C-alpha cells in the first residue's frame, strides 16, 4: 500500500519496514499469488538504471559510489542488488552491501539485496513486480545491479531505462563481449578500475567495437568511459552520460513503448515459471512419449489453471 502522504522516496522507519516485507513476499511468491494481486506502478515513474557485467568487475563498488553522490545531491534512490544463489545449498552470500555502506547509510537511500534463487536469467523471481513495489514509494531513481550471465543483459534491458555495462581492463573480456554480443544491450559502457594497467587499451578496443558495430539506436552513440572509483576519475563523465541518456530516452521512447516492453518481460517471466512447474510434474514415463505428444501434453498442462 502506498503511504498516505505523497511519497518522495525518503522512507521513515515504518515505510522502510513495509517495503522490505513486500519485497520479501514478492521474491518468494508463486506466479499464481503474484497474479492475484500484481503491484501496479504509479506516475511519475522512477528513472531506472541497470548495472550489469561479469562477477568481480566492480559493479557494487561503482553503484555504491554513484548512489552516494546522487543521494548527497538530493536524489532519492532505491537500490536492488541481485546476487547469485549457490546451486548446491540454494543459500547465498549477498555481499553487495559491503561495497555500498556509505551510500546505504543515507536516509534518501533504500537498499535491498536479493538472491537470484532459481531464476534462469540472472534476475530474481518477480523482479518486475519488485521494481513496481519500490516505485510506489516515490524514489527519483531506481538502480538495479545484476550479475551478467548471458541472458541477464537482455532481461535488464527490458526493465530499465538505461543499461550500464561494466567491463574490466583485460583483453580477454573484450573478446568475450564480442562473442556473447552483450555489448549490444549497453547504453553506456564503463571500463572499471581504469587506474589499472591495460585500461586505456580496453577502452580503445571497446570504443572501436561500438563505432564499427551496427548502430542500434537513432542519435545515440554508446559512450565508453573509464572510471576509477579508487581515484574518482571518470565519475563526473559517467554522471553526465547518465543525464544525456535520460534526455535521449525522453526524446525517443514513449511511455507506452516502455510499458509494453516491461509488460512483455513480466508475462514472459510468469509463463516461463509456469512452464518450469509444469515440466516438474512430468513422470519418467511421459518421456517415453514421442516428442510431438510430449510437447502437446506440456501445452495442455500449461493451459490448465
Amino acid at each position, binding site marked *: 500500500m502506498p503511504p498516505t502522504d505523497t511519497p518522495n522516496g525518503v522512507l521513515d*522507519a*515504518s515505510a*522502510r*519496514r513495509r517495503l*522490505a*516485507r513486500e*519485497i*520479501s513476499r514478492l521474491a*518468494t511468491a508463486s506466479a499464481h499469488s503474484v497474479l492475484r494481486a500484481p503491484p501496479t506502478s504509479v506516475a511519475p515513474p522512477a528513472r531506472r538504471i541497470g548495472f550489469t557485467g561479469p562477477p568481480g568487475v566492480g559493479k557494487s563498488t561503482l553503484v555504491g559510489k554513484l548512489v552516494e553522490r546522487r543521494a548527497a545531491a538530493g536524489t532519492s534512490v532505491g537500490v536492488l542488488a541481485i546476487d547469485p*544463489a*549457490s546451486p*548446491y*545449498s*540454494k*543459500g*547465498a*552470500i*549477498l*555481499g553487495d*552491501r*559491503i561495497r555500498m*555502506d556509505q551510500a*546505504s*547509510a543515507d536516509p534518501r537511500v*533504500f*537498499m*535491498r*539485496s536479493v*538472491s537470484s534463487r532459481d531464476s534462469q536469467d540472472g534476475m530474481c523471481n518477480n523482479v518486475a513486480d519488485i521494481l513496481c513495489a519500490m516505485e510506489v514509494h516515490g524514489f527519483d531513481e531506481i538502480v538495479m545491479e545484476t550479475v551478467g550471465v548471458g541472458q541477464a543483459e537482455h532481461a535488464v534491458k527490458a526493465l530499465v531505462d538505461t543499461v550500464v555495462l561494466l567491463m574490466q581492463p583485460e583483453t580477454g573480456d573484450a573478446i568475450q563481449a564480442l562473442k556473447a554480443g552483450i555489448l549490444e544491450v549497453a547504453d553506456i559502457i564503463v571500463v572499471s578500475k581504469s587506474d589499472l594497467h591495460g585500461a586505456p587499451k580496453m577502452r580503445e578496443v571497446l570504443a572501436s567495437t561500438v563505432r564499427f558495430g551496427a548502430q542500434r539506436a537513432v542519435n545515440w552513440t554508446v559512450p565508453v568511459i573509464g572510471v576509477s572509483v579508487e581515484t574518482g576519475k571518470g565519475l563526473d563523465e559517467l554522471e553526465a552520460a547518465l543525464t544525456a541518456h535520460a534526455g535521449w530516452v525522453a526524446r525517443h521512447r514513449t511511455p507506452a513503448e516502455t510499458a509494453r516492453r516491461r509488460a512483455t518481460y513480466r508475462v514472459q517471466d510468469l509463463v516461463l515459471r509456469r512452464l518450469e512447474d509444469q515440466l516438474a510434474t512430468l513422470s519418467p514415463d511421459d518421456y517415453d512419449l514421442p516428442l510431438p505428444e510430449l510437447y502437446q501434453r506440456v501445452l495442455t498442462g500449461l493451459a490448465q489453471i
Partner: protein
Amino acid sequence: MSLAGKRILIAKPGLDGHDVGAKIIALALRDAGAEVIYTGLRKSPEYIARVAVEEDVDAVGLSILSGSHVDLVRDTMRHLRAAEGGNIKLFVGGTIPQEDNAALLEAGAVGIFNASQRIEDVVAEMDKHLAAD
C-alpha cells in the same frame, strides 16, 4: 537441518578488526541454505538495525571480540525496536565470558556463542530458534 529461505545478517559492531569468525559462520549458514548478508567491519548498532530491517532478515548475528558485547547487544536491540524490527532474533558470538550470558539474554540476545563451540552446533542452534517462526 535446513535454514532454506531464512535471511540472516552477520554484523560486526564496534571497533575490533577481525572478521574471520564472522565469515566462517556466514559460509556455514549459506551452506545450510540461508541467504546471508554481511555488513563488513566496524558498523554502528543503528546502521546494523537499519540494514536488518531493509533486508528483512529473520535473524542478526553480531560478532564481537572487543569486550563491549553487553552494551552493543543492548544498543542493537534498542535500534532494532526503533526501526520496527523488534521481532528480529538477535544472536551474539565472539570472545564472551560465560558470566556475561545472563546480561546478554536480558539485553535481548536469544543465543550466545563462543569460539569453543563447533560450527555445526552454532548452525543447529540458530536453526532451532528460527524454525519456531
